[in-house]
């Protein structure tokens, strides 16, 4: 009985692996889910914040730096499985990808527009992060009053 189950499982597993070859492996979804749910702000990027390997990823890093946002970053270039997995997870074809409070927010273009419109400050506020730009603005207003 056991052999039968084992054999059919193996066949199933192989089929699963073959059909998944074009995509990421099954476990990556759970791994990504854990990462985005356990951290307020997550950036999936090419390279690392100190050394981005892509202009678009770098733009996101710079925006985060301006707002002094504490975030978790993951380098997709160091993990091919993650590189494909994150695209499947968020159903978004490009890197970088920013998650706030477990939800996919956007890539470089969207982050840039949110930064310019002030929407990013609002989104960060919702998760309890005060943007450094907001602090600076308030300090400036305070000085004007005095």
């Amino acid at each position: 009985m056991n052999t039968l189950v084992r054999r059919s499982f193996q066949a199933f597993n192989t089929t699963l692996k073959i059909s998944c070859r074009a995509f990421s492996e099954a476990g990556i979804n759970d791994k990504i889910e854990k990462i985005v749910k356990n951290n307020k702000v997550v950036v999936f990027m090419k390279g690392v914040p100190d050394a981005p390997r892509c202009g678009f990823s770098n733009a996101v890093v710079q925006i985060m730096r301006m707002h002094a946002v504490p975030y978790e970053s993951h380098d997709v270039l160091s993990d091919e499985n993650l590189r494909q997995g994150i695209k499947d997870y968020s159903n978004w074809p490009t890197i970088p990808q920013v998650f706030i409070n477990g939800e996919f927010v956007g890539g470089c273009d969207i982050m840039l527009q949110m930064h310019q419109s002030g929407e990013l400050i609002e989104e960060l506020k919702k998760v309890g992060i005060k943007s450094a730009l907001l602090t600076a603005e308030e300090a400036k207003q305070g000085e004007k009053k005095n």
Partner: protein
Amino acid sequence: MSSASGIVESTIRNKLLTILESKHVQVINESYMHNVPKGAETHFKVVVVSEKFDGLPLIKRHRLVNELLAEELQNGVHALSIVAKTPKQWEESDKLVENSPNCRGGFGK
């Protein structure tokens, strides 16, 4: 322009014009700015002005464009910068399209 637009560029332009009934479309091949072979069609910036974006938040607009270009994105295009505006927003803007960030080597270097 030195040469005719590539196949991918033309396909993208046609899709954006017809399916989104765009009032204005710009498809800019930015591959030359990146660490890829000459003549590559891997990095694009698209400017799309369409009524269909009305009422949609940014991310939904981008997802709409992504879905439209899903085939291209699965076959070679791996960077897509999107400017998606309604005709009203486009008219009110300065209509200037900024350059995308400079390449930082990518996987190559």
